[in-house]
């Protein structure tokens, strides 16, 4: 931990940057886990698993 604690950053703001930003490196040297598609699939899986438990507040508009 850093000595001075900063105000907690919202996880979604962090994921916007860590999963959609940052340099993507691919190639034989890496384990290729940073592959854009893979991360996108995992995040979708994550979001849909959350959605199953908590219905979207916007559902009434559909």
């Amino acid at each position, binding site marked *: *931990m*850093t*000595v001075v604690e*900063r105000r907690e*950053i*919202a*996880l*979604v*703001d*962090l*994921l*916007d*940057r*860590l*999963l*959609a*930003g*940052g*340099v*993507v*490196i691919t*190639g034989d*040297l*890496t*384990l*290729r*886990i*940073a592959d854009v598609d*893979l*991360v996108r699939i*995992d*995040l979708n*899986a*994550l*979001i849909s*698993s*959350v*959605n199953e438990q*908590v219905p*979207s*507040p*916007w559902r*009434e*508009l559909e």
Partner: protein
Amino acid sequence: MSGLRYVYAVCRPFGTPLSAQLTGVAGVPPKQLTHHGLVAVVGQVPEEDFAERPLRAHLEDLDWLSATARAHQNVIDALTVVTSPLPLRLATVFLDDSGVRTMMEQREDAFLRTLDRLDGRVEWGVKVYAESPETPESSATVDSAAGTESSEDPNSRPASSPAKPVSGRDYLRQRRGQRRAHEEKWEQAEEFSRRLHETLSGYAEETRIHAPQNAVLSHASGRNVLNAAYLVPRSESEAFVELVDRTKDDSPGLRVELTGPWAAYSFSGEDS
């Protein structure tokens, strides 16, 4: 077992040492790996969590993802204090130090170009939310009131509820009115966001629009209509923040949120 190498960022060599108390992913303090004019900030991580198969499973675990993302950010944040780092995508893992060096060697020119572009710049995040004119609870009450029997149930609607719809036709009319109010509200919000983005873009060297955030994940109230990132010189950041603050006052029913300063996560692409 030697462990794998988790790479947080690539930087120009920086004079100030990182805090000895700084820890990153897996609770391990990051170290610097220098190659020519570049420094990779690297942490050793266990194979049982970071080899491809376990990592793939971990990335679907919200608690694990959250802890890892925060640990990653913790290191990037510390780097941002002493330099302008080029962050790598979450969970970029190499087999060993030599793999990291080879990668730096191969990408040296692109890294140097990008680091020049980001030098002295930070990223600011700006989000606009349209507050919902009705809560999901009140809409659920309307739904249950549509059934003729359920309106007798004292639990089906709060005492403060507006006039009961007496017929299916009234109910539908009410729903249409609500829908129209929603649409107008969002058109307004989108117009506000478009103008705000235009103004802020004038102060930024680069901009990037992210997908609107899912309210389920963000737990934020209202609908996210703008989720944008701006690359701004540090020296102009104060003016940028003041500019965003000023817009907060003239936007009734809308909420403007500022986050940052971030490392330039959204502007690390070598193609831009």
